[in-house]
C-alpha cells in the first residue's frame, strides 16, 4: 500500500485496470477537485491486488474503500487480498440504481462484511416554492463549527455517513454552505447545502433534539429551498431506516430518486 501523491496516479490506475478486461466495476465517483483535497491532506492510499485497484481514504479509526476492477470475478477474488492488506475497520459504498440486484454487495457479504445501511437518494419534486423571509436564519460563522461537528457526531454514524472533520466544516462555513438558527450562542438547527453548479446537494439537515417539533427545521428547509430555486436538482441522501427523516423530507416535497447506496462494513 502506498500514499497517493498526485491525482494522475488515480487516473493512470483507472486506465491500466480498464486495459485488463471488458467490464467495469467501480464505486469511485469522486470529482477531481474533492480527490485533490484528500490527496493534499495525505488521506488517500492505493493498494493493488492482481488486476484490481483499491483506494483507501483514511479516516479517524477506519478507512473508506474505493475499487476499480475490469471483471466481476477479478473483484471477488481480490477481496481477500484487500482484507489481508490491512487490519483496520473498512467501509465500502456500493451505489446502484434502485431495483437492481447488488451482485458486488453480495460478494462483500460473502467475504465477511456486514451490510450496515442502505441510503436512498431523494430529490425535491415540488413545483411551488414557498416564499420565505425569516429574519432569524443566518450563515454559520467559524464559532459554530464545533457545535455543528458535535451535533453531527451525536446523530450520524461515522462509518457509513461520511461525517466531515472540523476542517471540512470550517471550509463549508467560509463557503457559506451552512445556514443556522441560534438562540444566543446555542445552535438550534442547521442546514448544510452544497452547490455544484445547478445541482444542490443537502449534506445535513439537523435540529438540536431539545428544540425539535417547534418548526425550526422546516423554516430552515423552506428558506434554503427558496434560495436554491434556480437549481435543476435538489438532492439528499437519507438512511432507509430513518423513518422520521424520510417523513420530514416527504413533507417538504421530496421523493425517492433512482439511486441507492448500500454501505458494507467490516468492523475490526
Amino acid at each position, binding site marked *: 500500500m502506498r500514499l497517493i501523491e498526485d491525482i494522475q496516479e488515480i487516473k*493512470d490506475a483507472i*486506465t491500466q485496470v*480498464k486495459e485488463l478486461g471488458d467490464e*467495469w466495476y467501480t464505486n*469511485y465517483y469522486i470529482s477531481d477537485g474533492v480527490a485533490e483535497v484528500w490527496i493534499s491532506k495525505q488521506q488517500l492510499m492505493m493498494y493493488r491486488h492482481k488486476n484490481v485497484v483499491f483506494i483507501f481514504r483514511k479516516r479517524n479509526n477506519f478507512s473508506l474503500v474505493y475499487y476499480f476492477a475490469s471483471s466481476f470475478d477479478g473483484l471477488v477474488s481480490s477481496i481477500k487480498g484487500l482484507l489481508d492488506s490491512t487490519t483496520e475497520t473498512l467501509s465500502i459504498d456500493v451505489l446502484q440504481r434502485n431495483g437492481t440486484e447488488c451482485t458486488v454487495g453480495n460478494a462483500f457479504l460473502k467475504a465477511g462484511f456486514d451490510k450496515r445501511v442502505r441510503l436512498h437518494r431523494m430529490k425535491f419534486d415540488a413545483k411551488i416554492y414557498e416564499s420565505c423571509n425569516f429574519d432569524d436564519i443566518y450563515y454559520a460563522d467559524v464559532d459554530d463549527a464545533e457545535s455543528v461537528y458535535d451535533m453531527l457526531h451525536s446523530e450520524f454514524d461515522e462509518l457509513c455517513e461520511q461525517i466531515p472533520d472540523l476542517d471540512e466544516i470550517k471550509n463549508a462555513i467560509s463557503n457559506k454552505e451552512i445556514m443556522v438558527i441560534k438562540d444566543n450562542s446555542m445552535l438550534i438547527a442547521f442546514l448544510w447545502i452544497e452547490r455544484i*453548479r445547478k445541482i444542490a446537494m443537502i449534506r445535513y439537515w439537523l435540529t438540536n433534539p431539545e428544540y425539535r417539533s417547534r418548526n425550526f427545521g422546516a423554516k430552515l428547509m423552506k428558506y434554503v429551498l427558496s434560495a436554491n430555486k434556480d437549481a435543476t436538482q435538489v438532492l439528499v441522501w437519507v438512511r432507509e431506516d430513518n423513518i422520521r427523516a424520510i417523513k420530514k423530507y416527504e413533507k417538504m416535497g421530496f421523493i425517492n430518486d433512482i439511486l441507492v447506496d448500500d454501505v458494507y462494513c467490516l468492523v475490526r
Partner: protein
Amino acid sequence: MKKIIELLAEIRPEYDFAGSNDFFEDGYLDSFDLITLVAALDKEYHTKIKGTDIVPEHFCNLEEIRKLMKGYGVEDDI
C-alpha cells in the same frame, strides 16, 4: 448524435440533452452519471476510455462527446 442522445436518455430520461450546451452546468448529470455514461459508451463502441479522459469537460455536450469518441476511433455517425 442520435445514439449518444439515446444513451444519455437511458441515464436521465427526464432531461432534454439535445437542448443543452453543458450537461454539468445545467445540472443534468452528476459524478455518478458521468461514470455511468463512460461505461455505456465503452460498452456501445467497444472502447476503453482512459482515466485521464474521464473529466466533465469531455462529456459536457454532444459535440464534445462526439470529438472524444472520434479520438478513440469511433467514426460512425454517432
